[in-house]
């Protein structure tokens, strides 16, 4: 229910789920934002036959996890450490997307406020 109630603030500035950010990434930051880097190599991903939708910024953790599974099968409980690393990385990625969403929403609200008073 909180999603329904909280969604109004985003819909009122015409921002929907899975939109792309429209403002300059550096706008409003005192420091310079660090770029995300892709650690897993393309040839490793191809050789491990990872599906396309899993080739994101957490793919190096996924590769380690798959290697561990292959080595420890069928005693998969031994891969809990690698699995935890991968899931944490995915969660941080999702939190980053949420932060981007909120930043985009606040910048739009600010732009509306500025253009209303101008």
């Amino acid at each position, binding site marked *: 229910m909180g999603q329904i109630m909280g969604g109004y603030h*985003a819909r009122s500035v015409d921002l929907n789920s899975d939109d792309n950010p429209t403002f300059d990434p550096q706008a409003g930051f005192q420091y310079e934002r660090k770029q995300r880097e892709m650690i897993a190599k393309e040839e490793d991903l191809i050789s491990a036959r990872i599906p396309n939708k899993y*080739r*994101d910024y957490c793919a190096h953790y996924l590769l380690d996890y798959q290697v561990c599974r292959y080595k420890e099968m069928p005693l998969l409980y031994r891969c809990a450490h690698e699995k935890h690393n991968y899931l944490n990385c995915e969660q941080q990625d999702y939190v980053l997307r949420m932060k981007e969403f909120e930043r985009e929403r606040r910048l739009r609200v600010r732009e509306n406020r500025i253009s209303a008073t101008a």
Partner: protein
Amino acid sequence: MSSKCIVYGCMFLNVKMSSLLKRALFNNSQSIRKTAALFCNATRNHWNYQYQPGPYPKTPEERAAAAKKYGMTVEEYTPYPEDMGYGDYPKLPDIGEDSKDPHYPYDNPELKRNFNEPLHATAEIFGGDRCDISIRRRFSLLHQWTWFLGTLGGFALLMVFLEDYKIGRPVTAKQIPGQGVHYLFSPN
């Protein structure tokens, strides 16, 4: 061997085997299968030259003769339109067997039909266990269409009006490494 099975099968179904049929069965190996399909079918498959209706009646005398042939009076006899190909077969009212009076003493109560009463041209679908388009509907057609279109249209309208009020997860698009530059929220 198979023809003997067919013969005994046909006898079990009470079908008469004429000598002509026997010659047809045992002479040609292909026709055994075809003839068996004809005669060992569950429905009746015979034809009689009297089943053929006469040509479309054009003069009043022909109409009177056709009405007499089918046992109807001249006033109530109307043939089908000529281009439909029914000849002089009468166009009877579309009353299904289910709507007919169940307490009347018919000659043939299983079919709710009297002797020499003309059968409807499409009597095979008006049988007591089949369609009956003349019954009083529990809900009128207008009622049915209203509810059907109303439900579908209501849902469609709901979708159209709520298109701008969708709920979603509060996240931007998934950041894929090859497409575009992405940043963290910290300097390191």
